[in-house]
């Protein structure tokens, strides 16, 4: 398989994640969709590392993996906080900051 196959695959995965972020109403589902997009980015980094023969891409993918996990940890605790103050985790109910 060549590089463009991996790039197209990760573009498709990213689009799926984008669709999920735009249409899901539940905060946990939105976090899962963000995971999809982050994974697409990781896949790209690993693919470039493979086809350029440099380990740097893998290093970056590992960094982004760790950062994504940290993001989800904080995001989930925000979801739990949202649940405590609202009784549900629907995003349209959390609109205080909306202009």
């Amino acid at each position, binding site marked *: *398989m060549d*590089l*463009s*196959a*991996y*790039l*197209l*695959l990760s*573009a*498709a*995965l*990213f*689009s*799926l994640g*984008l*669709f*999920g972020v*735009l*249409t*899901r*109403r*539940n905060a*946990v*589902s939105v*976090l*899962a*969709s963000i*995971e*999809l997009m982050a994974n697409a980015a*990781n*896949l790209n980094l*690993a*693919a470039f*590392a*493979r*086809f350029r*023969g*440099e*380990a740097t891409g*893998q*290093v970056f993918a*590992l*960094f982004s*993996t*760790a*950062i994504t*996990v*940290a993001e*989800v*940890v*904080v995001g*989930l*605790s*925000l979801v*739990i*906080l949202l649940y*405590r*103050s609202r009784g*549900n*985790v629907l995003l349209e109910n959390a609109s205080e900051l909306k202009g």
Partner: protein
Amino acid sequence: MLEQVAFAVAALLLLSSGLKVVTSKNLVHTVLWLGCMLAATAVLFVLLQAPFLAAIQLILYTGGLLTLMLFGVMLTQRDEGFVTIPNPSQRRVAGGVLAVVAFAVVANAVHNTPSLPNVRSAQLPTAQVGQLFFTQYALAFEVLAVLLLAATLGAIVLSRRADAGVASETPGADVPARRALPDPTAPTTERKEA
């Protein structure tokens, strides 16, 4: 030949489970399909000769993060039977159009870029990745450690139960400001329900 078959299977699994993640009505199914998607990504990492990345993906994402998300779902959805409300179709159409446009833009860019390096190289040893971590990217590595610490502390502070009397009664009320940490020798004060 074998690589093509493995790639096709993994790609199919990745996209179909990704589709289930964004369309499934049941929140637990969403999270489980997410685990399937992450495992398929690990397979692709193996195909890309990044076994260390694949192992980290399985341990950190599929092991740790999935468990965490399942906890999040189970802790926040108990009354609603684990079911999310269906999407309004109008937003669904708009989101679908935007996603297709995004894919078309990227695919067009990939298609029209002539200088993509398609050369096959020798296998990347994992030791090289480790070496880069502790030489060229040592500073970033340390900063990452601080970031993880900050995320852990942030999660603890955010998900601590607010002190008794104020929290969670009134939907829409502001989150009460945190008081001082309770005495760790008397943890029962914290457990009191609002």
